[in-house]
Every structure is written in C-alpha cells, then in structure tokens.
C-alpha cells in the first residue's frame, strides 16, 4: 500500500524542491498569461502548486477538474523568470501531468494520437496526408487555424483554417546526406532534426535551411529514423512512457553526429528536456544528457558554433527593404536563454530594418495541446501579441518556432493585420 502511494506521486516527488520553494507571495499573477485573462487563482503558478500540495496532502484527488487545472498552463516559464524565489512551478506541473496520466489514463482521441500515431512517423505522415484531403471540406467555415499538427485529427472536428499540408514531405524531397556544394570546404557534419511541422507543412523551409548550411560548409544529415520530438506527448499530455520511446528513437537516430540542429524552439527545448523528465535509468540519464548537449537551435548554431561572419546573412527577396520584428518563443528565450543570437542575425542582414516589439518575450498562447483544450483562451492571449506586433509598424514578424508561427498567422489573419509571419531562416537568401 505504501509503495502504491509513493507511485501515485512518483514524478511530482522528484520535483519536491520546486514544489516547496513557492512562498505564496502571488507575484506570478502579474506575469502569467493565463491568469491575466481568467483572473482566477487556479490559473496561476501559486494556485496550481497549492493544488498539487493539496493532492499530496490527500485533500484532493486525480479528478477531471484536477487534470483540467494542470493542463491550463502554457509552460511559458514567465512565472519562474520573475519569481523572487525562482520557484520552477512548470517543472512541477509537467511532473503532475505525468502522475495524472498514470492515475487516470489518456482519454480518446489523445490515447490514439499520442501512443499509436505520433511515434510512427511514416504512418503519421500518411494520416496527415489523408486528413489534408478533407481540409477544404471541413475547415474554412469557421475562423481560426489548427493549433498543432499532433492534434490534427481532433482539431479537424473543431474546424480551422490551417496552413496547407505540403504536397511532398521534406523526407521525400531531400537525401539523407546533403554535402556542401562543390568547391566549399566541409567544416562540420551535423544532424538536422526536422520536426513535424517542417517535415509535413513547411518542407520548403527545411530545404532552404539545408541549402543555407551546405553553402556555408556544413554537411547536413537528415536521419530517416528520427520522429516527433515528443513535446505534445510528455510535456503537454504527461505521457512519459510514450515520451521515453520517442526519446530513445531520436537518440538512436542521431548517434554519431556532433550536433543536432533544429529549426523549432519547442522541439529544441523538448529534446533537451529528455534528461530532466524522462530519464528513468542511469543509462538513459547519461544518453539523454549527452544528446541534449548536442542539440542546437539554428540561430544559436549559426552564431555560437559556426560563428558565421555578418556577411553570410544576406536578405531573401521577400525580406529585402522590409521592417522586421522578432517574437521570442518561450521555449527559446526563457527555457534556453537564447535571445541575443536571433536578434544579432536579423540586425546583420543588410537592407532589413530591425524593430524591437514591446514585450517580445510574452507568450503567444499557442503551447501545443494547450490551445486545443483552451482555444478561446489561446486566442485572447494571442490578441495581446497582435497588439504588440501592430505597434511596431513592422512588415514581417519572425520567429523560430513553427508552433508560434501558426498561432501568429491565425491571430494576424483573425485581426486583419497586414503583417507577414516568417521563420527567421526565411529572411536569409
């Protein structure tokens, strides 16, 4: 019995330091994007943490409401960044989600999507393709767009105006090994983690990144064995068992490569989070930690590893002469501390004017699964972002997270703002 009890709180117990660090000062209410919309205590870190303490004290149980309050967090980390005690409540929330899944199980259709579909890359691709045939039938009738690709099937029912599924996926467009052009010295050999969005929806972006790297002396390997990063599965839904399978798959796929370059902030941070959340054995801890160290966001890779000269950053045709602003994805800025590198790249591009937006690091409200469960809330959070973008007078808002980009496209279209949303790499020729 005692053993069973411990198991019930297994993951949360691992983050007891964070759990007890909160002093209940309530300063997080000012920073939490969810609290700012709802203004109820269960939205904010303090309230969620107290709820989890209540569970441990035996006052609460793994109810539907408990799971709901846990899910209602974008994991944007703004609370922690501004917490006087530096309490990392998002850690506790992810762990509590995992315990909740253990106790309650995953509900349809998420069990099918997370446990069966997402870990099978080819099948997933086919399903996405199949679903895309119905896009025109189901989607344009209501406003808004799909939130996360992993949510594709369930989101279909809700009806959204989503970016087109690409006619050919990236894995069908490029070879496994992409050598630098003839006459360019090979400086480095790196793996490219494509992420679901780039693979299925934005293959041209992926192709462009590979070409850019190849032109700058990088041999780019696109391992076929790679899969989804697992963010929606273990961070969003708390399904650590499936997450571990996905982690193992990716660690195996990139074995023998010095770096794993990504173009998606969420993927980057999820890949780096394997060790923190999913390591259940010393072997896995070791493997996940080493893997995490190899993972580099594309802007970080260009600036800190490859150390490209400013002259390497030339404007693409679409960026030339344009005013550009940058949105910090939470997973890049607060999770990984990468804020100066993308700005440095944009500022280096000749004939592009950089303008900083107010609260550039404020969460856009996407947060994957979060915006499926709480679409209205996600829209309200995004509307504040749109106001900030509007105030800059920029022609283009760039980011480095396809998740954020989908959210930005959705909200910009909904608010009828004439601004283009692009990935930072699309600014570059």
């Amino acid at each position, binding site marked *: 019995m005692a053993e069973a009890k411990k198991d019930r709180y297994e993951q949360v117990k691992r983050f007891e330091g964070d759990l007890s660090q909160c002093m209940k*000062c*309530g300063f997080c209410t*000012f920073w939490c994007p969810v609290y700012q919309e709802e203004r109820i205590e*269960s939205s904010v870190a303090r309230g969620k943490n107290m709820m989890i303490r209540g569970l441990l004290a035996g006052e609460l149980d793994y109810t539907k409401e*408990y799971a709901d309050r846990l899910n209602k967090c974008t994991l944007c980390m703004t609370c922690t960044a501004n917490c006087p005690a530096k309490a990392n409540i998002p850690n506790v929330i992810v762990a509590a989600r995992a315990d909740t899944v253990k106790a309650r199980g995953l509900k349809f259709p998420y069990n099918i999507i997370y446990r069966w579909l997402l870990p099978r890359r080819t099948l997933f691709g086919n399903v996405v393709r199949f679903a895309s045939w119905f896009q025109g039938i189901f989607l344009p009738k209501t406003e808004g767009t799909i939130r996360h690709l992993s949510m594709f099937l369930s989101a279909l029912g809700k009806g959204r105006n989503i970016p087109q599924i690409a006619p050919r996926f990236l894995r069908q467009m490029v070879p496994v090994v992409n050598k630098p052009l003839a006459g360019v010295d090979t400086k480095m050999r790196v793996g490219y983690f494509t992420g679901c969005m780039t693979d299925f929806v934005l293959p041209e972006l992926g192709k462009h990144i590979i070409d850019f790297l190849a032109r700058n002396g990088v041999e780019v390997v696109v391992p076929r064995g790679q899969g989804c990063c697992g963010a929606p599965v273990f961070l969003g839904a708390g399904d650590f068992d499936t997450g571990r399978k996905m982690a193992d798959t990716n660690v195996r796929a990139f074995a023998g490569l010095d770096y794993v370059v990504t173009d998606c902030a969420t993927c980057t941070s999820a890949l780096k989070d394997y060790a923190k959340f999913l390591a259940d054995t010393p072997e896995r801890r070791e493997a996940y930690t080493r893997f995490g160290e190899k993972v580099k966001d594309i802007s970080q890779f260009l600036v800190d590893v490859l150390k490209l000269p400013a002259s390497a950053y030339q404007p693409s045709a679409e960026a030339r002469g344009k005013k550009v602003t940058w949105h910090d994805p939470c997973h890049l800025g607060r999770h990984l501390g990468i804020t100066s590198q993308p700005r440095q790249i944009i500022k280096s591009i000749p004939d592009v004017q950089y303008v900083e937006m107010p609260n550039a690091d404020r969460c856009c409200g996407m947060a994957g699964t979060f915006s499926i469960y709480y679409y209205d809330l996600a829209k309200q959070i995004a509307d504040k972002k749109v106001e900030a973008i509007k105030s800059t007078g920029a022609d283009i808002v760039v980011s480095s997270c396809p998740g954020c980009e989908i959210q930005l496209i959705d909200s910009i279209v909904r608010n009828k703002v004439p601004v283009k949303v692009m990935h930072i790499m699309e600014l570059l020729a």
Partner: protein
Amino acid sequence: MLAAKIISQLQKIAGKEAVLTAKEDLNAYSYDSTATWAHLPDVVVLPTTTEQVSQILKLANESKIPVTPRGAGTNLSGGSIPIKGGIVLCTTRMNKILDINKTNLTATVEPGVVLQDFNIALAKEGLFYPPDPQSFLGCTIGGTVAENAGGPYCLKYGVTKQYVIGLEVVLADGYIMKLGGVTVKNRTGYELMMLFTGSEGTLGIITKIILRLVPLPPASKTMMAVFDDMAVGGQAVSNILASGVVPAKVEFVDNFIIRRIEEMTPMGLPVDAKALLLLLADGSPAAVEAESAQIVDILKKSGAKEVKVAKDANEAAMYWKMRSAGFAATFGAAHTVMAEDVAVPRDKLAEFIRKLDEISQRTGFFISYLGHAGDGNLHPSIFTDIRNKEEFARAQKAMEEIFDTALSLGGVLSGEHGIGLEKQRFLKRAMDPVALDIMKKVKGMLDPNNILNPGKIWEEEA
C-alpha cells in the same frame, strides 16, 4: 456545505462561469500569503459589477452566509482567508480603470485593478500613485484600501488612507452607498470613508475607489549604505530625518536577507554587511542632487561603512528588486516563518533594534528583520516549525515579547498589514478597551448578522 439552491442563485446573479465550486478551485482560495492559515470556502464568486455584489450580499445576508472579500490574496494578515467557510467574494474581475483625470489629479478605479497595472497606466500620463505595498505586482487596489496598506514610498508620501477621497461601498444588506467624491477637500459630516479604509472587509465591500494622485517625480536617485551595526543604521535614519530631508524611501534589510537574496539571485551584494539601508531621493533634478548629497554626507558621518549611489536606472532597479524580494527570502528560510509588522516612533528605532537583539539572545530564536526604517515600521521574522509544538509555543512567546517591546516604546501592533487572523490575540493589549468596544458596536450596527469577513480583527468571545 451550502444548499444547492444558494449556488444556483449565485449563478443566476453572477453567471455560471463566475461561480466556482470544484474542490480544486476552492483549495486555491483557502490561503493568502501568510504561512500558517488556511480554510476552504464553500463557494467562490467573481462578480463583475456593483449590482452583482449587492445581490450577492443581499442573498448572503438573508441566508446568514459568511462572505469573505478577497482581491489577489497577497495579504500578510490572514485577512482574506475564509475562516468560517461560506462565500469568497473575489473582486479580481472588477478590474477597470474608469477614469484618469490629469487636470484634477484624480483617478476612479474598480477594486480589482492591480496596483502595478494602475501605476503603469498613470505613468503614461505623467502621474503617480505612491502607496506601494511590496506586493504591488499582484495586489489589487481594493485590497490595499481595505487594508489601508503602506510601503516604502509612504515615508514621504503617506499611506493609502491619505489618497482615498471617494468610495462606493456595498453594505451587508446589499445597499450601495457612495462616500466622498472627486474633490481633495470635503468636510461633509463624519469621515465615514475612513471607516471603510482599513476595515479589512468587515464592514462592507468596496466596489469603486476615487484616488488622489501626484505628478510623477521627474528625477530620482537610489543610494545604498552598508552598516556594521544595525542600531547605528537606525540612528543614521533618525539623523537624516532630523536634518530636514525627507527621502522618498528609506528601507532596511539585515545580513540574513542580504545573504538569502544573493543566494537566490546573485547581484554582488556585500554579504558580510550587518545591515543595508536603501534610500531614494526624488523630485526635481536640482532637488534630487542637493538632497542626495546631503543624505550621503549624513550617512557617512553617522558611521556607514560604505555608501554607494546607483549609477543608473538598472543598478537602482536591482537594489529595489532585492528589497521587494525580501519577504519571499525570509519565507523560504524555515518551515514556519512568523513575520510581523510592528511600528515604533522613528526616533526609537535604534533602541528597538537593540532590544530585538536582546530578545533574540534571551530566547535563542534568530530574528531577521527588514522594513521601512524611515517610518519605524519593521518586519521582524522568527523562524520556527509549527509541527514542533513546544518550539512553536516558545516562538510565539518570543514574538509576544517583540510586540510588548514595540508597544512599550509607543509603537503599534501593525504598521501596514492589518490585524486579520495573524495578530488578533494581541489586539486587547494594543488598544483602548473602549475603542475596541466602539469598533464592535460599529460592526454590529453595519453588519448585524456578522456575515462580512467574520472571525477577523478581534478574537471572538467563547
């Protein structure tokens, strides 16, 4: 448990979505920022209009259901904890700034406006609302009025009550009463507004507030002084005030807090300093120059080991952030932190600090303190563990000694946090018995069914 009929009536009044009954939500309204108190409400209601508040109170009054008003729950007295269960009436969704009048230097706000949001909006107009409890990022203006809150700026600018010029209050029976107005001067009958300002939610629910404002000071300068002896630091504060300068803020943190903060957020603080004074001069650029020079001079003459003037806004902000994190720093230090809020006359500060040292030595409890040295308002904290009954009892005894010492020096029980639950067992010895009796009679008259924040301020007779 409340009858299902009450819940459905509340839903009819405020809307389904504004009535929370899930255990998970009730749990989130069972606490405030204090360490030891907690009690679940039966239901939480989040009204958006005065009319809704009125109807909720009418219903509660007829059914004799306790109503605990709550803003953001950042208070430090236990005041917003629904100790008798019943309804938590939470005002966080009544958060509109209704008017900012630059020429009349006034603003009208709903109670749920967050203090920091208010000051951000005011700054855009070149205006400023000084009372600044250090929970300004979370606390609502309604809460600060109900608690008559103060903060660092109150040294020069005064506490909340000096800014409230008009209120709309819903009485226990649901009547919506208007008090005061938009004029700075108003001599019409008794000053009933002051009855509600600082009433800790026991007399009525504040639904609209008219505040006096001041122009945003165009310049400011932050200074930091290091002391080897806390009492010498206290004396330096008295010397500054006696010299004819009133700094905007004079704050005080002890060695324990300096080290804790440096641990949590390294910022290069002098970790071996016994005490730090943080001071701010503000006003016109010329006045700030002259005053800060005078302050630095007196600090040095009064025995400061080191005096630093912040080079720029960033350095200044860093020091003030440290100060606002002070409470959090103490709260993380032990299982149970008893943080108090006594205030002594400013010229007794050094003497009080020496006596605190004696108490610490005599009782064996480490006493950490931070606070508003400029107005004699200190927050001594005793670290203990409520689970250890014997030790906790001794800690309470030591805290009693601190209260008695403050009172014997002509001080008060609470400078700015209020009595709530936290300090009610000391109220009798801190107040004239006739005054206490009048308070109870006022309460009985305004709230005959005792539904408004029952169980607060004074101990109930058994």
